[in-house]
């Protein structure tokens, strides 16, 4: 048994033993969970993929004369301004104003909130245009300028839902091509797409939220951030395999960090034909190996993590709850699976190599004593399901 304080002391002294989630698999297999718990201080987990429920609060600083912004656009993308005078929230999936969207189907969605966020993090300037109705103390009604992230007082990423614990595998059983947030799906189940880092993924290494909770320090796109809340749609009461690992969506995390400390490599605007725009993010979460149970959970393998194959042409949009079967991540990661009597090519939207890279980076930061762990202030709910929205008249 170790404590957070003991592990942090070892990190600060540059003596912490840190492994990536992938290295931990072999370590536990060779030495057993008890020995691993004695030897290993921290396991690094990570994921890199589109996370639509992301965005940032920005403070532009006051203009002369002052303005109380009511509407605001960054590179033509609307940012929510129903906040104090020069605060705004820019969401990742916000389309550029006048984007023709899916009017001519399928739309290209070349640029949106996620791309603006990427530009800001990359130090590029963006055009800001703001309107107001004018008040006596905030008389200005219009303002236009170009800004970089350095000009902003604050640029704080606050993401209501990141790091989905597990995710659907999408397939299309209809007779025509469909365009989804999991990419283009060909008819008659000709391809499928998944989106998870599997055995590297933070919440798959801590399936019962024993170490990751509100207040946990995270590596968010290169910046030190933390879990600020349970993620939206956090649904721990779900289908789980006997190792406690969810076999469907399950838990999520609300994450926040200072965008000024982020690196563009891990903050990437993305476009999905026929669907819209989003933001791909890199997240790393260290797991303290407090005891053998936690060590054992961090040794979870792709072949022991299952995901549900869902028909995105009918069952997903109609929320029927029906799935077509399950596949494990070892099968999915191979790039081709046998499913319902057919050999099907598999695409992914989550980058395993980027997740691996983040695991290594975080491992190095912890080894060098640059990243200390934090004990959660509050555990994430472990029992809770997800409701549908009632339709009333």
């Amino acid at each position, binding site marked *: 048994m170790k404590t957070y304080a003991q592990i942090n002391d070892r990190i600060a002294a540059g003596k912490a033993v840190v492994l990536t989630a992938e290295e931990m698999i072999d370590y536990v297999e060779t030495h057993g969970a008890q020995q691993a718990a004695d030897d290993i201080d921290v396991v690094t987990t990570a994921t*890199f*993929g*589109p996370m639509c429920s992301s965005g940032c609060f920005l403070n532009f600083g006051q203009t002369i004369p002052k303005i109380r912004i009511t509407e605001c656009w960054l590179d033509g993308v609307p940012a929510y301004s129903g906040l104090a005078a020069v605060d705004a929230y820019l969401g990742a999936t916000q389309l550029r104003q006048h984007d023709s969207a899916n009017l001519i189907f399928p739309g290209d969605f*070349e640029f949106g909130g996620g791309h603006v966020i990427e530009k800001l993090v990359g130090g590029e300037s963006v055009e800001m245009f703001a309107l107001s109705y004018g008040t006596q103390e905030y008389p200005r009604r219009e303002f236009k300028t170009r800004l970089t992230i350095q000009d902003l007082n604050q640029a704080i990423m606050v993401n209501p839902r990141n790091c989905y614990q597990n995710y659907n595998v999408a397939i299309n059983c209809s007779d025509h091509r469909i365009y989804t947030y999991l*990419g*283009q799906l*060909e008819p008659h189940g*000709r*391809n*499928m*797409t998944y989106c998870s880092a599997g055995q590297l993924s933070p919440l798959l290494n801590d399936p019962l939220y024993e170490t990751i909770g509100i207040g946990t320090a995270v590596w968010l796109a290169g910046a030190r951030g933390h879990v600020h809340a349970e993620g939206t749609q956090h649904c721990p009461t779900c289908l789980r395999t006997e190792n406690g690992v969810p076999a469907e969506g399950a838990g999520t995390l609300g994450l926040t960090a200072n965008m000024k400390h982020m690196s563009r490599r891990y903050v*990437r605007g*993305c*476009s*999905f*034909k026929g669907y819209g725009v*989003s933001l*791909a993010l890199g997240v790393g979460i260290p797991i303290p190996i407090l005891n053998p149970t936690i060590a054992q959970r961090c040794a979870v393998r792709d072949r022991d993590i299952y995901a549900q194959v869902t028909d995105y042409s009918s069952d997903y949009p109609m929320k029927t709850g029906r799935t077509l079967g399950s596949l494990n991540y070892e099968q999915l*990661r*191979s*790039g081709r699976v046998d499913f319902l009597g057919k050999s099907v*090519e*598999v*695409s*992914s*939207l*989550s*980058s*395993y*190599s*980027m997740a*691996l890279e983040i695991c290594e980076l975080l491992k190095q930061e912890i080894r060098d004593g640059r990243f200390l762990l934090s004990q959660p202030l509050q555990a994430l709910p472990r029992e809770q399901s997800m409701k549908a929205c009632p339709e009333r008249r």
Partner: protein
Amino acid sequence: MIAKHKYFFHFPKCETDTPIVCRLVRDYDLEVNIFRAKVNAEGEGYLLLELTGEEAQIERAKDFICSFGVSVNTVDKGVIRNTDTCTHCGNCLSHCAPHALHLRDSHTRFVDFDESRCVACGQCVANCPMGACSTVF
């Protein structure tokens, strides 16, 4: 010796009227597999094709094409995958029928691009969320 080469031709405005491909077949005994062709609004043409035939004949055919002021690019640059912006997500994999974009191994899931297998279908351009794939025409 029978050889197979992929070429990317850029035709200046004046030459888009000349039936060059026909001459390649008739005069140089080559098999021509056209991947993509386009004439733009300025009247310039782009052609990406694969030539199969005697190595010497291919060389002569190339000289013949160049005599029209056509520029020839032999490095298969019909489609470009930007290695700086590619995140190796793997979304393009199931859309690239000839597996020009393919997994280096299932361990790292690094996505490699073998230009020689690319048929310039453009599916990766439409399917890359990061905008890492583009075509020159």
